[in-house]
């Protein structure tokens, strides 16, 4: 799993490539928390190249959503594939997360 971080007009875009599963969840969470500690509070999670997410990966997204809310920022999840969308729906998270079809569209929301 790989995370590519870019800045775009005050929004931090995290591109997650590969599998966000139990093995990689902690790395992803640490990466996010480090950015939040630097003062970032507006995020886009770009899932275009994320092949798979497990419940452990889901936890990272929830932790991020909670953190962003406490910082009074905003999180948009973009470009989910079918498997990823299913997991989010099953967990009920889809009702509390803002989603977008692409990262570009997500950036418009800020």
């Amino acid at each position, binding site marked *: 799993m790989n995370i590519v971080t870019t800045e775009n007009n005050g929004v931090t875009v995290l591109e997650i490539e590969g599998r966000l599963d139990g093995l990689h969840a902690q790395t992803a969470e640490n990466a996010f928390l480090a950015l939040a500690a630097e003062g970032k509070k507006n995020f886009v999670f770009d899932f275009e190249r994320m092949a798979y997410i497990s*419940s452990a990966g889901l936890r990272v997204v*929830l932790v991020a959503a909670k953190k962003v809310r406490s910082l009074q920022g905003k999180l948009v999840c973009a470009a989910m594939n079918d498997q990823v969308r299913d997991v989010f729906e099953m967990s*009920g998270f889809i009702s509390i997360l803002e989603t977008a079809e692409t990262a570009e569209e997500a950036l418009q929301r800020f």
Partner: protein
Amino acid sequence: MAEWLYGAAIVAGGLVGAGITYAGIRGRLARSKALFDISMLLHSTLRRSEQMDRIIRTARRVLPVEAASFMLLDHDTGELVFEVAQGDKGDEVREIRLSPGEGIAGVVASTGQSVIVNDPAGDPRWSERVSQATGFATRNLLTVPIINQGRVEGVLQVINKRGRTGFTRKDRVWLEQVAKPMAVALENARLYEQAEQSLMALNTTTAIKERLESELQIAGGIQMSFLPRTMPSSQEPYDICALLKSAKEVGGDFYNFYKVSNNLLFFTLGDVSDKGIPAALFMAVTLTLIKGKMTQDMTPGQLLRLVNEELASDNPPLFATIVCGVFNTETGEIVMSEGGHCPPYIVRAGGEVEPVKLRKSLPLAAMQDVDYHDISLRLEHGDRLIVYTDGITEAENAAQELYSGERLREFLAMTPGMSSAEVIDALLMHVFMFAGDAPQSDDIAVLSLMRK
């Protein structure tokens, strides 16, 4: 008479001659014995400082000097380092480092050749530094290299030979003999020290690991004691069985079931979003809250709302997916609610497998002020309800394929007529055969409730 005198003279002369020879032999014997003793010492202990101390003391038996020191060559810097020293000023020379080539010792170390200096002041190679630092007045000194396999490892130096003569060639040769085996002994001592340190580190780490493992086992035992161990008897009009299999000693999946009244059986099953000790603790709290709050008048949805408020108010970094329900043992009706959990299945007596369409809500502790919704369904005689955690559907084989909901449905279609215990056993077997050698990556929990 004259012959007798002559004979006596010869004998006397012989005696005197023999006496001189005897002294010589005794001297040589003493030296040989000292060498032998040193050799024994080198094999007797592997602690370098002890060895060096003893060796030098032994050497001084044969070569009486005021002080002796042994210096080790630091191969990284080229400096000679004092390791041990004897004599009146012994303590003071322990810490000194000579720059490469400095002093007689430095010369010996760099050339690998022994040096006798019986007139230090007149010798241009002589370095005043050590003398000045210690106040030791050097009259003469003999320095020999310690060589192991062609490489200089250090230097052995003896200072101020007692008596009036300076150091002789014989002294030098003898001291070189002493130095020969010291190099090998030094290497052995160094390797031994390294091995000792590694062994100590290994022992410490092993002890810590063993303690952790035993604590985890204890925690696992405590955790299992939360779960109902006895299954209701065969007198009941239902057959319920559940199984928990953690990926580690303590896990995050949980289940529970108990009667809240004569004809109402409450059951729950869930999955904390982590593994190991944090998940286990969260799980214990969740189960306790559920047990504490559930009453016969409450619906599952109402229960989950209350439990979620409690858990979410502390804003923990964890959450728990959950499904729970109340089964009416007389009518077969089930009222169920869920939070973020994978869909349960009904297996009808005829073999049809239907997903239970629950109204989805959030996992427990994800957010405050969340509504949980109830739905109703009915089990006819012979129908079965299966609830499980995603450790089943997300079980992977070596090719990273998932067991998936599809395989689960295929399996369940084969189960009508089996008891709940049989179904659970068979399901675990099916999953593990699919997963093959791949290790269990997530906790597994399954519960089967059949209406007889």
